[in-house]
């Protein structure tokens, strides 16, 4: 017999009230504003925008505050919010060659035109706790250097491309499939994989990327170029009949140079992996490029070695932390009836086992 059980409303209300109190913490400590989170927890904000798949620093900061700093919970809030927004249009693809770069490095060419620009990076820090941050204090402004007029920063891989040493990135204007509009279908094309990876969980994509480096689907990646900076977003406005820029967004882009393919008819060439993510999220962008490259084994005529990072079904079905969290955490919700059935079953099996043992004795 199935009996619906109600109740728990008061407990839930009180739990939420306590949650709000815990969120606030010690009232003797000044409350954190969302502007403070946006300005001082920028990389958390960036991760929430990237995986929440919505570029809006104010909302990401609000989500982080509401989620008490639990970034996956914050991403969940952003994903839920974005479903309430009408989709007005799609942008023309961002032109990352015209990025106003704050960081741009290459691990393949020391003297790349445009130079190696370190930007505000944790690299070369000693990873020692800086106790000076315990005290409040002014930070001196960062040094500046004279610059010429702004120039486009050509992609480093375009130099290899010019000499035919790397596979071409074939331009097209095919409208891409959209994960947020149609359920994932396999096999997926590269556009769909890139969308899934860019909003995928940083930890999961990092782990997969690392596994390729350790030999599970090895493709020996060099960071051909990593760049961070802002790009204008341009949309066609139907009522005007021309396109306008609706703002600038910060992006991280990683292009990897990987080991070659070639055949009897085609001389060997380097191959590419690609990562592009919202905000300053370089660990994610590099990971994305490595996993993108691993997933391209079929189109590049490589062997499937059974490595997780090569397995499109495995990667795409598990990289989304909101899907994963939803399914994982649902098992803590009441399963009284399911469990009751299991309990009945095990009791009857045990009773039968005891009965047959007694009969044997």
């Amino acid at each position, binding site marked *: 017999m199935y009996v619906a059980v109600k109740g728990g409303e008061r407990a839930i209300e009180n739990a939420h009230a306590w949650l709000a109190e815990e969120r606030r913490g010690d009232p003797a400590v000044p409350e954190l504003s969302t502007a403070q989170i946006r300005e001082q927890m920028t990389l958390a904000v960036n991760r929430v925008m990237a995986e929440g798949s919505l570029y809006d620093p104010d909302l990401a900061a609000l989500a982080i505050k509401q989620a008490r700093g639990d970034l996956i919970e914050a991403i969940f809030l952003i994903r839920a919010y974005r479903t309430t927004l009408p989709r007005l249009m799609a942008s023309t693809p*961002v032109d990352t060659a015209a990025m106003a770069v704050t960081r741009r490095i290459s691990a393949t060419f020391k003297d790349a035109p445009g130079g190696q620009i370190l930007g505000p990076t944790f690299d070369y820090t000693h990873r020692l706790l800086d106790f000076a941050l315990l005290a409040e204090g002014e930070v001196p402004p960062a040094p500046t250097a004279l610059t010429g007029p702004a120039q486009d920063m050509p992609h480093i891989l375009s130099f290899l491309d010019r000499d035919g040493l790397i596979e071409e990135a074939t331009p097209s204007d095919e409208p891409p499939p959209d994960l947020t509009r149609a359920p994932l279908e396999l096999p997926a094309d590269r556009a769909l994989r890139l969308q899934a990876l860019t909003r995928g969980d940083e930890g999961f994509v990092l782990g997969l990327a690392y596994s390729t480096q350790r030999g599970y689907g090895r493709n020996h990646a060099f960071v051909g170029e990593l760049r961070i900076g802002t790009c204008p977003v341009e949309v066609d406005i139907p009522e005007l009949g021309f396109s306008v820029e609706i703002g600038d967004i910060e992006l991280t882009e990683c292009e990897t140079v990987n080991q070659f393919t070639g055949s009897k008819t085609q001389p060997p060439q380097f191959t590419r992996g690609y990562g592009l993510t919202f905000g300053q999220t370089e660990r994610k962008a590099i990971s994305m490029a490595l996993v993108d490259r691993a997933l391209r084994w079929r189109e590049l005529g490589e062997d499937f070695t059974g490595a997780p990072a090569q397995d499109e079904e495995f990667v795409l079905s598990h990289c989304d932390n909101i899907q994963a969290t939803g399914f994982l955490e649902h098992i803590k919700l009441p399963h009284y009836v399911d469990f009751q059935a299991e309990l009945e079953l095990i009791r009857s099996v045990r009773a039968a086992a005891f009965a047959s043992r007694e009969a044997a004795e």
Partner: protein
Amino acid sequence: MTMSERRDWMGVLARSQPQRLADLLGPLPAHEMLRNPEIGAVMVRGRAGAAGAPFNLGEMTVTRCSLQLQGGLVGHAYVQGRDKSHAIRAAIVDALMQGPQSATTREAILAPLQQDQSAHRAATRAKAAATKVEFFTMVRGED
């Protein structure tokens, strides 16, 4: 007015700090909404390998509106974020720029906004330039 001029000023207005635009514009001229401010999302696209086939990168928030000034000038705005009054002000300036007040509007509103934005870009470029690596080779004295 050319299409490319209008494109440029709409871009400047979209990028402007909402408060700065409000300070520069002052009290709003009389206007009638043709399309009330609407908050929505634009799907931002990238290209595989920077130059290849497009893919969906993720959405961004955007607010749009259309209005008409007394006298019939129509202004449109598409601005990043969720600030409805920012969109209204941007549309008002877009309308003003198409009429007889374009020269004064350019001087009083667009020029300072442009200046802010180019100063900001220049400051970022100067900081980036200071982190540019100057490689040098150590003389090893082996030969």
